[in-house]
């Protein structure tokens, strides 16, 4: 089966204001097959989030190659890369990043707005997702009224709205208490499996990593064997 995303000898370097070179990733390789759930663990600064950004095409490697759905991202112009992300990648962030001026349902619908999908059908899908995460009653509420766990559930619905082939989650429980984190993770993994999406998620938690099909550990930018 063709992998959804492939990393080939990926290195990412940043230059500091003082001119020093920081290596966030060093020759990382690996692939995430369709429908598979991969956890990325490691200490702070080990390059976990950088790996996710490279997978989403919102950052580019200094050397090496990232291939998303068979298309090398470096060879694509920004517009194509953006469309690929829009149509096939869902993103979940540690800090939720919901838009405060929109209601719960409208936040879920943002990817449909971005893509120009028919809104009526998208709204039906949004309602169904909200029902799955237990927030159907809160669809019209302002997002500021939600708890952290509820916000992340909304963010999860947003990420899954357009049935992405790849779900990228950057410490999705990092800003939640244990109970809320558990619930969010249950939903994330359950929904992804139901939808057939591959998942690449970053976590500090060994317990959460253990729930994945596969776990990658990064250490100072290197993937441990």
């Amino acid at each position, binding site marked *: 089966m063709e992998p959804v995303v492939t990393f080939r000898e990926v290195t990412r370097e940043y230059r500091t204001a003082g001119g020093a070179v920081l290596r966030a990733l060093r020759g990382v390789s690996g692939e995430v097959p369709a429908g598979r759930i991969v956890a990325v663990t490691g200490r702070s600064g080990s390059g976990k989030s950088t790996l996710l950004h490279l997978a989403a095409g919102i950052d580019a490697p200094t050397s090496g190659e990232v291939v998303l759905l068979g298309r090398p991202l470096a060879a694509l112009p920004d517009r194509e890369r953006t469309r690929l992300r829009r149509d096939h990648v869902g993103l979940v962030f540690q800090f939720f990043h919901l838009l405060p001026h929109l209601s719960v349902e409208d936040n879920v619908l943002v990817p449909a707005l*971005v893509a*120009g999908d028919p*809104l009526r059908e998208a709204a039906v899908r949004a309602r169904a997702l909200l029902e799955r995460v237990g927030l159907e009653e809160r669809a019209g509420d302002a997002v500021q009224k939600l708890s952290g766990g509820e916000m992340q559930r909304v963010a999860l619905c947003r990420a899954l709205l357009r049935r992405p082939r790849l779900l990228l989650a950057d410490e999705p429980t990092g800003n939640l208490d244990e109970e809320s984190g558990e619930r969010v993770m249950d939903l994330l993994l359950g929904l992804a499996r139901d939808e057939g999406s591959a998942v690449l998620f970053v976590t500090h938690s060994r317990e959460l990593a253990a729930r994945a099909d596969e776990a990658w550990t990064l250490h100072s930018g290197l993937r441990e064997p």
Partner: protein
Amino acid sequence: MRRYLVRAIAKELRASRALFILAVAGVALGVGSVLSIQILNRSALGAFAGSVRALSGEADLSVLGWAGFLDERLLDEVLSVRGVAAAIPLWRAEAAVDGRTDASLELVGADLLQAAVRAPWRLPEGGLGDALTRRGWVAVTPALAAEMGWRVGDRIPVSLGSRRATLVVGALVDLQRIAPLASRRLAVMDIAQAQALLGERGRIHQLDVRAAEGVSLAELRARLEARLGGRARVLTPEQRTAEAEGLLAAFRLNLTALSLVSLLVGGFLVYASVRASLARRREELGVLRAVGATRAQVLRLVLAEAALLGAAGTAAGIPLGWLAARANVAAVSGTIRNLYLLEGIEAVTLGPGLVLLAVATGVAGAVAGALGPAIDASREDPRALLASITLEERVRARSGRTLAAGLAALAAAAAAHVALRGRWAPSAFVLALGVLVAVPLAAPAAIRLLARAGRPHRLGVAYGVRTLGARLGSSAVAAGALAVAVAMLAGVTVMVGSFRGSVERWLDATLRADVYVSTPSWRRARSDATLAPEVIARLRQAPGLVGLDLLRQVQVQAAGRRISLSGLDGALPGGERRVELLAGDPAAAMAALRGGAALVSEPLARKAGLAPGSRLAVRGPGGETALPVAGVYRDYGTEGGAALVDLSTFARLFGPGAPSNAALYLAPGADAEAEVLRLRAALRDHAVQIRSNRTLRGEVLALFEQTFAVTRLLQAMGLVIAAAGVTLSLLVLARERRGELALYRALGATRPQLFAVFLGRGLGIGLVGLALGAAGGAGLARVLVDVVNPAFFGWSIALHPPWGALGGQALAILAAAAAASLYPALTASRTPAAELSRDAL
């Protein structure tokens, strides 16, 4: 803290150059508007005072005729008064320079023997003999000689009324050295020659009196007035200048008020800029407070930065104001000369007083604009300041309270106006200010209303419009500033359009004759610019003539002010159609006119409290005469006031004399333009201006347009500031919402989509600004048309909104808002999705 301030400002400048430049531009344009008007105002007054000083020098008092002229026999009487050391008679009239359109000489006939000793100016060595003996000898200013290309010895053909004479440039006398703002058109000649060549024997216009040493001026003035027994008035130079100031008061106040609106709009920019800067620097301020900075220190830090911004704006605004003033000298000068009959502006000067005013306006305006956000920031505790701002930050929903405050301000202004109406004329401006305050305060509510519009289907323009309310603070300030500028634009456009419509209707109603005859010098010389008897005789021979209307005119003191009094033929068949009465029967009014009554113009009636049945006190050479008022007529010719009497009444008041204007009524079907050409050919030896009805009408409307030239400039400056406000606010939005933009990018939004979102936000601001501005403009127009014009100028105007012009302006405003969004939209569209990783939300 001072050192910190310097570093903080340097850092802020580096971090947000575009915002700083826009805020500085806003202050600069505001200061430029105010300064240009003040320069023009002061230069206009300076021109009058300068001419007084250059001619009358150290004269302590001036004796002036009630109707502008004096019998020269009064000289002996004045000299006989105890305490008079000397009295210098002056003959003054503005003569047209033939063959040079709009060129004229402000001729002063003086007793050159006395002037050689007492006047502040000097003739060249040995020039006195020539001046007294050489026919037509005249001294002109070097500035005028250079402008006209005259040299000593050149002959200048001039005219006063229909009478022509040839003057000879005898000397160049720099009167502007004595008073720099004095008219360069001043020209001095021997009084006897002036009277013989262009005037009347025995008629002078002014007697300058020098008091003997140690004599009390007040007592001398009282003695002179007693001796003259009401036949003339006695004024100090200061009183004369104050009189000119009074004549221009309404004109100056209107321009000043308009220029202040630009400053108000500039203040919005400062507010928006400081607010954005503080939002960005919350953490910095939190750290400062946490390490021990007091609230006062934080307040001072923010205000000092604003003051610096104001100083930078002022530095740019001063040259801008100077240039704007220079660009408008001709238009303002023309208005002052033609409508107020005062000296035109010779030079614009920027004295230290005006520079100080500009600095105070710019710095105080900037500090006032920053005060609100600065106080807010200083009140917050360190914990609140240090809390990171995330997307979860609550949107402040104070729009309802703000709207209520605006409505309360409007109600308070209306109440103040009602309470002060009739007692304090500027109460009309309080009402206008109420409208201008209420309009921007309604912006947050209007934006929230816009957010309720239908759900957009794509991330694009409509989404940008709908989500404008997400950062009410920034978008409402921009929309509010734009609304103020639009309100001013729309209000003044409706007022000018209504005024123009009213003037056109008035011209249609009253400009009934086919051909009008006057002289090149008539507009300013009035009673001195008469038509010679042979001209009148030729006019009477015009083929197809069915009626000849002759008019005499004089500037006279009546009802305690200087008015224009005209004598016309009350018995002219159909003559009642020459005036449009506000009320009453025109034929009956004409009959009363023939019986010795007067008709008063609407401005005079309002200002002097006259109505049919009351009496108009006219001061003529023979003393005061009270004429019964038979009616009030519509008049837009002079805001100072005018009155009409029958020619017989005029002769009774001012003695016999020639008319200054004539109007020819031709038989139906006669070709007026052909008659104009025939008369011009027949009267080519006389200095006359002969125009058809159509031409005169065109000239009146051109004069009207000239009067509003400065107004248009001020409107444009206000709009430019508002457009800068849109750019500034969208840049602030692009910066504040960088996290949101990065999120859209992360979710797959393309750059063109983000560009469209910001274009939508610009258009949304434009729409709200336009809608509120239109509402405010409608209110402002009503205030200007129904309250300000009657209160200040005395005339009533019918509302004639120029829909075509207003529609064009609306499109231009939306286009300007869209254009102002381009750069911020481009900046926003470049936000990388990777920004999201920085947790900048």
